[in-house]
């Protein structure tokens, strides 16, 4: 038997390249080309009165300066609303270069192209833009007040308003024995991949074709968008995602203004043009996420069973809605986690502010939803004097209730139906891992020693693997190499390894013989993209199905060659053999030769496939009516709906009684993402997610002042965690396979980040239980905790 690789912690095949400086990221491409730089708005809200480029014309190396007026046809028009929705009644997007008005600091106004980036920036500095300042709308409260407008034609700053309801939640709450109200807040954060955005374009005037490299999570859709914007036939445009230095959501947005403009400029100038985003540009002109205000009203019985849940969300969507209202839809649907809410009503208002657009960042609205639900669970437990784990468990959907239909519509427009999961088992595992039941003694002991330690818990369910589809292509070359392609992109998930594992096992070949390409429209043109924890689910299954097709064809051809029934054949280590008959074998590479009847022989292998090489039935065509040449196959996986992973985190924290410093003493994760292809890679995804969650819970927030200036647009001031801030992460897992796909996979990419703010809020509150504080806003810094203590003390004094 070929050694199975699926389920094994195989070392990544992309690593030797990346470890020796041989990776090829966007800015590594096309050093000889021209460079683009942008004049961006320094104001949050202003009318453009005049643009004067005179002084810039003197810059040596200047090639071109473009403003909105220079952009022809569709190039200059507003960018698409990628995901329309009937509730998005007032979707607004930017033009690639601002037309008359700018709506956030960082919005592009002028593009300069020069012989190198230094010179392009020199020219940018010499361009003068006159503005008529308009009052900015900053912060959710200001947007909600609606006194000032971001867009004149959007009343109340409301881009979308959506209500989803099952049952009569308000009536259920009104008649419930107990009712609680919570006001909650999550602040802004951002993906901040270490590599920013970037795009390189090359126009081939002879071939009338465009090749674009872009640091994207969706190369096929960038291709379609650019073809539409530039009015080129689709087959004249190819888009390639090279090595991508992290995405975490922000690179799913497309086409970025810069993607359209750089590609257009390359055509206009007939030369290669590249733009590499710098770090400040990334902060002020890419995208952010997370910022929400929430009101939760919950009715429950004396045992803590939910009877009705009514949630209202005010979601800050920034200045534009290029990605629609996916984030608040996910918040309001995924908020439910592993629980039965009783009657449920969720309402959101998506609001414009004069800040960078809000689009998905890892978790995509789930961390906010999880925070709302888990804070509610903790509040119920506190109200009833019950163990927080007990309240959660009482509200779990049972494993015997799967599949569970919430009666809502999920972000993919499909019913919100959980496919599988064993939540009590997950809870039992995480309680055991952290020592939940023994903690009270530890807390008391610490308290006696003057220390404050607390434990927290958070549960989530994550819809993963959204459709509509992904495809896979598998081909056995005549040298035995197995070439695999799938259209979605890779930004660190190890797809060259995991998809090779799947194909190697399905086909019966050695892992080393499989070569995987992703995100290259020349190799696979139909795809959606890498987001929503979907790549392993979607393309993993697609390449498996394609490999199964190839296997069937290989067995048929080998059966003819070996004069054996294909059902008696197996493929082991790249050789087709008759089960139990030693010597009756044919290598897969030879099957590949036979699969492609040739007229011309160019080497020893191909001689075997020419017309005089083998006896053939003279009455049959060399390629049968229902056949195609080549040992290759393409197939697609398209799920009926998402598959739902779950997990539970628990943490022990210590807070300093004097300084209010918050230390994470232990962090435990139990997760269930169905069948694991590569446990090492899944664990790495969990680690990275938790680290981003810790950042979002304790350190990272994007701070705008009242004028709409982003005050911390650098890594100096936006506090991304270093190794010193991230605790040891202890992990364990369950594997409840998804019944929805052949491999039983559920996604894992976003899982780690989802419950961290909820868990740490719970743990800090527990550590501070003697102080009686309530945490309603994340992230929380030591100074904020200090102030919460002071407020609690004052309230105590007042009462």
């Amino acid at each position, binding site marked *: 038997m070929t050694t199975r690789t699926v389920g094994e912690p195989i*070392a*990544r095949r*992309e*690593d*030797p390249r*990346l*470890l*020796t*400086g*041989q*990776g*090829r*990221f966007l*800015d*590594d491409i096309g*050093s000889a080309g021209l460079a683009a730089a942008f004049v961006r708005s320094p104001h949050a809200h202003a009318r453009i009165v005049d643009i004067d480029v005179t002084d810039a*014309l003197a*810059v*040596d*190396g*200047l*090639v*071109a*300066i*473009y*403003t909105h007026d*220079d952009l022809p046809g569709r190039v200059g028009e507003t960018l698409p609303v990628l995901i329309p929705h009937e509730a998005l009644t007032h979707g607004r997007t930017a033009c690639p270069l601002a037309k008359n008005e700018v709506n956030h600091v960082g919005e592009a106004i002028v593009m300069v192209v020069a012989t190198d980036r*230094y010179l392009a920036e020199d020219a940018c500095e010499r361009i003068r833009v006159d503005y008529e300042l308009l009052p900015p709308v900053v912060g959710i409260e200001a947007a909600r007040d609606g006194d000032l407008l971001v867009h004149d034609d959007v009343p109340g700053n409301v881009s979308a308003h959506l209500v989803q309801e099952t049952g009569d939640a308000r009536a259920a709450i009104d008649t419930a024995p107990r009712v609680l109200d919570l006001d909650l807040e999550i602040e802004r954060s951002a*993906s901040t*991949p*270490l*590599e920013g955005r970037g795009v390189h374009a090359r126009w081939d005037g002879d071939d009338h074709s465009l090749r674009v490299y872009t640091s994207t999570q969706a190369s096929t859709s960038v291709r379609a968008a650019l073809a539409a914007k530039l009015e080129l036939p689709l087959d004249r445009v190819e888009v390639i995602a090279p*090595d991508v*230095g*992290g995405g*975490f959501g922000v690179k799913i947005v497309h086409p970025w203004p810069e993607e359209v403009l750089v590609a257009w400029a390359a055509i206009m*100038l007939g030369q290669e043009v590249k733009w590499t985003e*710098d*770090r400040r540009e990334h902060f002020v002109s890419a995208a952010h996420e997370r910022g929400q205000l929430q009101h939760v009203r919950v009715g429950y019985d004396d045992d803590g069973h939910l009877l009705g849940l009514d949630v209202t969300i005010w979601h800050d969507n920034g200045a534009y809605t290029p990605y629609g209202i996916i984030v608040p839809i996910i918040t309001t649907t995924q908020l439910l986690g592993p629980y039965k809410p009783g009657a449920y009503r969720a309402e959101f208002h998506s609001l414009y502010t004069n800040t960078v657009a809000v689009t998905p960042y890892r978790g995509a609205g789930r961390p906010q939803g999880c925070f709302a639900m888990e804070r509610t669970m903790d509040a119920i437990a506190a109200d009833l004097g019950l163990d927080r784990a007990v309240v959660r468990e009482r509200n779990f959907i049972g494993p015997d209730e799967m599949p569970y239909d919430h009666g809502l519509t999920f972000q993919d427009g499909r019913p919100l139906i959980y496919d599988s999961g064993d939540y009590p088992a997950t809870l039992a595992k995480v309680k055991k891992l952290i020592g939940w039941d023994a903690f009270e003694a530890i807390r008391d002991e610490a308290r006696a020693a003057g220390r404050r330690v607390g434990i927290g818990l958070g549960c989530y369910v994550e819809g993963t693997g959204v459709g509509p589809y992904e495809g896979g292509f598998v081909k056995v070359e005549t040298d035995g190499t197995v070439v695999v392609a799938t259209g979605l992109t890779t930004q*660190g998930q190890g797809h060259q390894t995991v998809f090779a594992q799947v194909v190697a096992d399905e086909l019966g070949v050695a892992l080393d013989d499989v070569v995987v390409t992703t995100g290259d429209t020349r190799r696979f043109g139909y795809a959606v993209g890498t987001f929503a924890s979907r790549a392993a689910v979607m393309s993993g299954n697609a390449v498996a199905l394609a490999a199964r097709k190839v296997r069937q064809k290989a067995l048929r051809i080998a059966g003819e060659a070996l004069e054996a029934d294909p059902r008696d054949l197996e493929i082991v280590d790249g050789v087709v053999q008759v089960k139990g008959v030693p010597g009756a074998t044919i290598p897969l590479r030879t099957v590949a030769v036979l699969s492609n009847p040739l007229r011309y022989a160019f080497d020893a292998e191909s001689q075997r496939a020419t017309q005089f090489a083998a006896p053939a039935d003279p009455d049959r065509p060399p390629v049968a009516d229902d056949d195609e040449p080549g040992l290759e196959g393409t197939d697609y996986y398209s799920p009926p709906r998402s598959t739902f992973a779950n997990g539970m985190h628990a943490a022990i924290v210590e807070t300093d009684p004097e300084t209010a410093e918050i230390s994470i003493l232990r962090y435990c994760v139990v997760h269930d993402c169905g069948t694991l292809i590569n446990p*090492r*890679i899944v664990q*790495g995804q969990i*680690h*990275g*997610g*938790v*680290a*981003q969650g810790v950042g979002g819970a304790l350190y990272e927030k994007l701070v705008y002042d009242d004028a709409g200036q982003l005050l911390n647009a*650098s*890594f*100096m001031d936006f506090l*991304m965690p*270093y*190794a*010193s801030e*991230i605790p*040891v*992460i202890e992990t364990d897992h369950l594997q409840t396979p998804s019944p929805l796909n052949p491999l039983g996979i559920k996604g894992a990419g976003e899982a*780690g980040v989802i419950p961290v703010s909820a868990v740490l809020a719970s743990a800090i509150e527990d550590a501070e239980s003697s102080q009686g504080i309530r945490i309603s806003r994340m992230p929380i810094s030591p100074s904020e905790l200090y102030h919460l203590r002071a407020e609690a003390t004052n309230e105590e004094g007042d009462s």
Partner: protein
Amino acid sequence: MTAMTPTGPAESLHEVTLTVNGVPRSASVPARRLLSDFLRHDLGLTGTHVGCEHGVCGACTVLVDGETIRSCLQFAVMHDGAEVTTVEGCARGDGELSAVQRAFGECHGLQCGFCTPGFVTTVTAYLDQHPDPSEAEAREAITGNLCRCTGYQNIVASVLRAAQLRREEREEAPG
């Protein structure tokens, strides 16, 4: 407003010669050319990455005369005549991965790989000075470098594994 004829003065250029990964390399560049851009775009050594351009992320870390520096904070002309080691020069002379590089592979110490060159150079220099770190010391050694993918768990493990591999190499070395 396209294809204008430039009229301004060209910048004056300076010949900068570095010994990079043991090989003398030269280019004529303006005084303001950053060392990171010089390595990447003038010498074509694109393994050195630029993540923040303000010396915080550490992705651009290279070794100059054996010491780690942030190449995005230095001008190339400041280092005329220096010995520079980049990630491309961290592999052994025979092309085999170094102990540090192998350790990162074995421990899954990288995901997207963008910050990785800075970690490889940083850890290589650190282990030259501190061959036997504790776990806490290994963590401390990498606290100047940002990684957005791994949560650092496996990078700490990689530092410890690299130290172990280097010890084994020393023990196996003849003489």
